């Protein structure tokens, strides 16, 4: 408690580096423990990247679309299934009819619903055919009309960038966070060194520097663990790794306190 109290006193006097060190310690634990979750969240900002080839299907409005959607999603290679409502199908059809100057809507039956089936990016032509065949069997061949398979809609450049991000981005963000942590750590370390020097001079205590900084960082590490605990995606070996790195750096860089002006 004595060391933790001193840690917060030092933070109070050095708000920027103190808050930075505390917050980044917390963020690193949560981020590294759930690195895949955060990476996927960022990639999720570009849904077209996750979406591979896709096709549309037109089904009778009387079909149980939810059941078909659920069954399709269980299929390996199916990334996303979106149901297109009756009204949207109607509007799109009317637009096409209008463009073709036909305008005879009363002759058409609009009791249809659409479905957009997006496949995984790595599903090959054979896989695509198997999925389409399964959908036909599921809905009944006479009740469904399948559109052609469109290639993924993402630009080549964006795809390349996102590929790189997918491969190295998670760790790169982790590394950046860690560099900021180191910066804050070195900045605060000088202040901790001074206070530790005084405490060791006038109180019967040893190893004050490492105890002060360790108690502070450990507190935020534990809070990070508690926040990560309910998250099912937490990779605890990474959380433990972060703890080990924190401890090693603090132990290596904390020497005998000195007074450096």
């Amino acid at each position, binding site marked *: 408690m*004595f060391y933790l109290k001193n840690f917060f006193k030092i933070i109070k006097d050095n708000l920027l580096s103190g808050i930075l060190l505390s917050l980044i310690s917390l963020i690193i634990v949560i981020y590294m423990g759930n690195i895949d979750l955060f990476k996927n969240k960022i990639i999720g900002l570009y849904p077209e990247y996750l979406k591979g080839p896709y096709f549309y299907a037109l089904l009778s409005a009387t079909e149980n679309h939810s059941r078909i959607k659920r069954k399709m999603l269980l299929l390996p290679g199916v990334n996303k299934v979106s149901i297109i409502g009756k009204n949207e199908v109607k509007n799109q059809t009317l637009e096409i009819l209008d463009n073709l100057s036909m305008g005879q809507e009363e002759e058409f039956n609009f009791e249809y619903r659409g479905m957009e089936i997006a496949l995984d990016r790595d599903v090959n032509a054979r896989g695509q055919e198997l999925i389409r065949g399964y959908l036909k069997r599921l809905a009944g061949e006479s009740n469904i009309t399948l559109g052609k398979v469109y290639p993924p809609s993402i630009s080549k450049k964006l795809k390349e960038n996102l590929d790189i991000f997918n491969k190295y981005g998670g760790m790169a963000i982790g590394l950046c966070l860690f560099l900021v942590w180191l910066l804050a750590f070195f900045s605060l370390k000088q202040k901790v060194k001074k206070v530790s*020097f*005084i*405490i060791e*001079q*006038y*109180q*019967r205590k040893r190893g004050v520097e490492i105890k002060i900084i360790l108690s502070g960082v450990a507190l935020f590490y534990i809070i990070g663990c508690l926040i990560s605990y309910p998250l099912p995606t937490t990779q605890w070996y990474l959380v433990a790794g972060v703890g080990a790195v924190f401890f090693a750096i603090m132990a290596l860089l904390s020497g005998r306190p000195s007074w450096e002006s």
Partner: protein
Amino acid sequence: MLQNSIRGFSKKRPVTSSDDTLFSLEDVSVTFGNLKALESVSLDIHQGEILFVTGSSGAGKTTLLRLLAEQLKPDSGKILLPKDLIGVRLFISQVFQDLKFLMNKTCEENLFHSFDKKVYKNKKIFLGEMNDLCKILGITDRLHLKMEQANGGLKQKVALIRALLAKPEVIILDEPTGSLDVDNARKIYEVLSYYNMKKKLTIIWASHNRELVKEFTGRIIHLDSGKLVYTGHACFI
């Protein structure tokens, strides 16, 4: 209580030596580049002793104190510290020449760095002793000042009180009265000799002011260009 005990104490003779050697230096030399800061210094310091280290600026006083505080290692010779001689690591506190304060804190906050729960049962006892010492040295009304607002004299008094409140077995003082007039210097000596007598505090006091030191009771060693040139009783200098 402490104040009453100290009042008039200087008339009594403090303990100046004993047989228990606390520090032993044998032929110790320290060199900084081409400069010989200490040259073949041999010296024993005893438990409960008041030792004055005199010499002009650059004579090697601070170097000697840093050796005793284990902040320096000798280039040659042997230095035996309390842990080597009496097998115990004694608590040594220092009053540095540059004082070393947290400048954005008040005098009081800086004094609180000496509040050690291993030494004081509770804060009340610590505060009592702190207030007594502040009263004796006449700084009670200036404790709220930030260190950056304090003058040299106040800083030196705070530094001394901080070191005494730590209740060390040995106190090392590097020019503790440099910014003080003779009366205040005498007052500081009175306080220190009280602690020496009552609490067997070993005092190692470096000063360039031999005239001042002559007034006090204790052993004196004089350094000149890193060499020990005189050792004897302060009043016989």
